[in-house]
């Protein structure tokens, strides 16, 4: 068994699937419907959304790696506590880094960085994958799910920032002449309900294109 897996190349087809599947078929937000809370809260602008996505990706990947390495020594009864300790430690590291290097974004994300600890994607991946797979695979799985989360986050943030405040990465891209002609920014897009509706529309489009995802 061990020799067989040693021979498997690091980026074999199966391992790459771990990275690409969460972008589409097993997307944490649109298919597994995890991590919705932060997706609604941090998607008003693109910049915080990207930072949030990166933070979640890093935390998920390393939490997966660490838990997967420890998986044979963790007693099954207290595994959730062990997982939480690992996640919490990583989140504190990320939070401190954000505060040190991108303070303004960290301010905007406010409590939601801390809330990564309770993000369902992390616990879900640890329970469902890292506890039963080898470290490298778990690491890839963590990155893949983080990116899948980030993909939806950035898409929603792009739509909301463009229609809600006419901006892209904080730059005004809808020309002033539009406003002079009577165009107005859609204030509803800045409010959380529209984030929910936007994600709903993404799920709608996603499922109508992939009939296999439609539940009976």
């Amino acid at each position: 068994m061990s020799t067989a897996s040693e021979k498997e190349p690091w980026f074999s087809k199966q391992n790459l699937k771990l990275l690409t599947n969460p972008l589409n078929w097993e997307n944490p937000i649109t298919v597994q419907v995890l991590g919705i809370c932060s997706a609604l809260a941090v998607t008003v602008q693109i910049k915080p959304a990207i930072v949030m996505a990166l933070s979640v990706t890093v935390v998920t990947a390393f939490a997966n790696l660490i838990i997967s390495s420890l998986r044979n020594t963790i007693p099954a009864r207290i595994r959730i506590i062990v997982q939480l300790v690992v996640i919490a430690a990583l989140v504190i590291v990320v939070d401190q880094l954000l505060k040190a290097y991108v303070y303004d974004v960290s301010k905007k994300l406010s409590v939601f960085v801390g809330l990564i600890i309770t993000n369902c994607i992390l616990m879900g991946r640890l329970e469902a994958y890292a506890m039963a797979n080898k470290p490298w695979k778990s690491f890839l799985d963590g990155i893949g799910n983080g990116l899948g989360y980030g993909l939806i986050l950035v898409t929603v943030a792009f739509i909301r920032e463009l229609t809600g405040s006419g901006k892209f990465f904080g730059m005004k891209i809808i020309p002033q002449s539009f406003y002079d002609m009577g165009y107005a920014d859609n204030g509803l897009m800045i409010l959380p309900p529209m984030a929910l509706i936007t994600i709903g529309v993404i799920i709608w489009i996603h499922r109508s294109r992939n009939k296999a995802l439609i539940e009976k």
Partner: protein
Amino acid sequence: MKSLRKYLDKIKPNFQPGGKFQKFRSTFDAFETFLFVPNHVTKKGSHIRDYIDLKRTMSIVVMALMPALLFGMWNVGYQHYLSVGQTVTFLEQFWFGFIAVFPIVVVAYVSGLSVEFIFAQIRGHEVNEGFLVSGMLIPLIMPVDTPLWMIAVATIFAVIFGKEVFGGTGMNIFNPALLARAFVFFAYPAKITGDFIWIEGLSDKSSKIVDGFSGATPLSQAANYAVDKIPSDLTLFLGNIPGSIGETSKLAILIGAAILLLSGIGNWRIMLTTVLGGLFMSLIFNLVGANPYMQISPITQLLMGGFLFGAVFMATDPVTAAQTNTGKYIYGFLVGVIAIMVRVFNPAYPEGMMLSILLMNAFAPLIDHYVVEANIKRRLKRISPIQK
């Protein structure tokens, strides 16, 4: 008429399954049933069929809305010429209002119906007549100054997310017309609140406004505690005041209510209890009397803003209201109570009727559930001694 029928019969095979344009079957069907009485025949079992189908129901509601629309058109012109200080004839006032209001009606219908047609095509079902009423309600509850593209965006949003997402006509949780207004209200707050948007041309800074003309609606005057500036009850009733296009004249609304009640389409239970709820809550506020808004008499409260319009045309929507008779009493009463509460407690939302109806739309199924449960329990109690 004959030739039209002949022409339709001639092109009909193209739209049947197997025909050239079979994809557009629902579009053809929609036009055919719109122009002629559908000749559907009951195929299985015995059914009693009535002439009152969805199309006729909707047409009667649209007819009931006509007085409010016509009065609204005249009032738009009247208010405009009042604001610029010109005296013109009745016809000129009406014509000005017609020019201002008619595009809004057209835009609401075109944008809403296009969405309906597209969805009917994709899903392969018939186009329902449900939008005929929504498309007429939307212009009537908007300020006349709302840009046309906003009406279009709001209507499209309301039809997609208020109706099609849930499965189309008859499946919606929220009243689509109110959803359109709520969309504009939250998305473009500058265009639907304030004193300048209720009268055509007033928000345009270049136009000459008569000194001392404010354009404020009775509701905004009440919210600013300028209670003495609220027009007399008779003026409020007749409706030559600033406001959304169709809601100002209570007389026109009552004519509409009479049409709805006589034809048996509107529900008297909801209308009655909504008004009672409003009266009840404003009486309680009268007793408290903590601020000038609370001291406004119950009758004035009911005559201000869109309360009656909402009670007659919005709360009674057969799809989104409660379905059981007992439920309707509860539903209507709470609509009235909450509408007055929102008005008085939160001046940021001058028109509480919209929010209260939307809120109760969400609660209607819950009310029905408990009414049905209570009924089952009551009847079970009656049967249990015999079983023992």
